[in-house]
């Protein structure tokens, strides 16, 4: 059974319920015939991909929805073979180069040139060019990004790129210079409620506005998360009321526990106990940055206003270290120890 997120995914620009002006802008670009390269960025769950698929449909017609998955083999200079999946229709293809890690440059070099040097098969195609959608473009290596530069200029009659990213920060300046930046904001809470209501109606569920509003708030404006929560709540409960509890995901609940433990006792023994839990989260593939951020935002409501800024300061400090270092557990643990220290000092100052 398909999940709601897939089942009710809008399939054309006019089915998109929010950011109407952005939909119009994309439509006018798609209909103009001189579609530029795009760099589409915005937070996770804001609906970037959906919006782009809808744009492709405006560009090429329903043919873009007939997709297939190919497995391709690339050869590196050191003769290593790389296997790599490509989703394609006759008008476009979609790749996630981060799948091949450091060899992304090889894939980008070979694949894009190949696409660029061959013309559109469909003689009646609305556009002469083909589109290559690159997922997670912010994790492309610098070399891979550099490899895109001249290709984007030289082959512009045959090729357009759409890069999808959470942020533009890791995109090199020459690439930003060659693309039109398109920001996709996360939907507001009201907009999320609206989407939930439409989805619920399609499923024949009785709507509970209060519940939907709580889901929207809990989701942190992430529509994908909101829809998953919405579906889970309906799957788990016979009867829905505005008060039906919304259980957080396991890992989030565990971080809630860690936050209370940090507050409860400031001792080496306690750190040891927490370390085990942190390891647990890491082995379940929760990224260190997510752990650190979630923990921070679980701690904030529990502590005095005076120390909130201090905790954020150390969170940012250790997150930077996580990024630069190699042993993430060190920095997570150091953060825990630091927060305990800050809280301890605060308690002492209050005693006097």
């Amino acid at each position, binding site marked *: 059974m398909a999940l709601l997120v897939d089942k009710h995914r809008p399939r054309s620009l006019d089915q998109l319920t929010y950011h109407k002006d952005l939909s119009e802008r994309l439509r006018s*670009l798609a209909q103009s015939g001189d579609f*530029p390269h795009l760099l589409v960025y915005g937070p996770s769950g804001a609906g970037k991909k959906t919006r782009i698929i809808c744009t492709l449909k405006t560009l090429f017609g329903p043919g873009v929805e007939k997709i297939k998955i190919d497995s391709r083999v690339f050869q590196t200079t050191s003769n290593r073979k790389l296997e790599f999946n490509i989703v394609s229709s006759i008008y476009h293809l979609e790749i996630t180069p981060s799948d091949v890690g450091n060899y992304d440059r090889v894939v980008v070099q070979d694949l894009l040139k190949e696409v660029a040097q061959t013309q*559109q098969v469909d003689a009646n195609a609305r556009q*002469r060019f083909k589109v290559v959608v690159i997922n997670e473009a912010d994790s492309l290596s610098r*070399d891979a990004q550099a490899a895109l530069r001249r290709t984007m200029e030289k082959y512009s009659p045959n090729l357009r790129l759409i890069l999808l990213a959470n942020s533009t920060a890791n995109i090199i300046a020459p690439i930003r210079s060659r693309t039109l930046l398109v920001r996709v904001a996360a939907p507001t809470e009201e907009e999320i409620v609206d989407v939930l209501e439409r989805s619920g109606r399609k499923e024949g569920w009785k709507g509970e506005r209060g519940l939907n509003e709580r889901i929207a708030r809990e989701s942190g404006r992430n529509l994908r998360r909101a829809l998953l929560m919405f579906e889970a709540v309906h799957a788990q409960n016979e009867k829905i009321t505005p008060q039906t509890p919304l259980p957080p995901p396991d890992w989030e609940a565990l971080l809630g526990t860690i936050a209370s433990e940090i507050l409860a006792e400031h001792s080496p023994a306690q750190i040891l106990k927490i370390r085990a839990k942190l390891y647990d989260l890491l082995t379940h593939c929760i990224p260190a940055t997510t752990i650190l951020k979630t923990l921070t935002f679980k701690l904030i409501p529990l502590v005095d206003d005076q120390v909130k800024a201090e905790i954020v300061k150390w969170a940012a400090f250790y997150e*930077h270290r996580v990024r630069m270092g190699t042993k993430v557990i060190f920095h997570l643990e150091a953060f825990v120890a630091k927060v305990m220290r800050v809280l301890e000092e605060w308690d002492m100052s209050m005693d006097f």
Partner: protein
Amino acid sequence: MASFFDLKARKEAAATNGSSKSAPAAKETNRMQPWVEKYRPKNLSDVTAQDHTITVLQRTLQSSNLPHMLFYGPPGTGKTSTVLALAKELYGPELMKTRVLELNASDERGISIVREKVKNFARMQLAQPTAAQRAQYPCPPYKIIILDEADSMTQDAQSALRRTMETYSKITRFCLICNYVTRIIDPLASRCSKFRFKSLDQGNARARVEDIARKEGVRLEDGAADMLIKCSEGDLRKAITFLQSAARLVGAVGDDGEEEEDKMDVDEKEEKLVTVKSVEDIAGVIPDATIEGLVQAMRPKSRGLVYEAVSKQVTDMVADGWSATQVITQLFPAIIYDEAIADNQKNKITLIFSEADKRLVDGSDEHLTILDSALRISGILAGA
């Protein structure tokens, strides 16, 4: 339906496509070209704002004696355009095919390629120009190897170039192009005449943009040209892309709702007014009100309220997708030019911006970085 990767099928299809309606296709290509390519300078005198470089190159064109060259400068300032125009003026479009080798970052340029491909081309005998070519172009007796985007070449590959460059310098000239001159190893850089491509100054960039707008029949509202230039920060490619997209945006929206496909052809020459607002939208500038909201939240308040206010603003900005770099870029002037803030506070605040910039470049989490910076600035404003 033919498979995407079935090359044979695609070539056949392309061939039939080409033969059946080749005439309209040519016209269409022109229409569909991105303006950055359509208005790429065709010859040296077409390149704007790099007067010094162009004068020197034009002089060498006459004397037909070219040194090895190194072009460097920020994106979109005309480096690639200049070298291509130069090559065309030296050899003409035909002879250029055999006399010029262009390798860029999309080509494999490891050490083995430098040893093989580059060396083979470098030592190859010169193809002789025909009399007609000689009459029209200088056709000097050497080849040119263009290594565009050379900052992405490894040090080893660069070292391998040294010998080739010297050995064959009689019949081959090199032109290296990069954004950061420091990425080119010294022994190579010292063998080249260096040409710096400046970030385009306001006046020249503006003239070029206005010229393109005129040719495309796009009207600019008062101040729109200035906004285009301001948002593109000396990068002419960016300015032209913004212009084209803004033109599309206003071009299509004005037409209350009719959406036939062929309408675009008709209104191609119709006049459109590009507004300051539409440029801001396209360029991703954060509205002043949003920045002001953040600044207000950071101002000293009674105990405890600051965190709530700042964190709400920051959370919203992150969810709205504003890039942290853009936030920092726009927040900086908002604070530094605020007369009400004391100088010694500004000194401390500058350090926070420096730290934030570094962290963002290192790829730190944008939400935490902005929240932390905003709270620390707020602490300084409160006199902590």
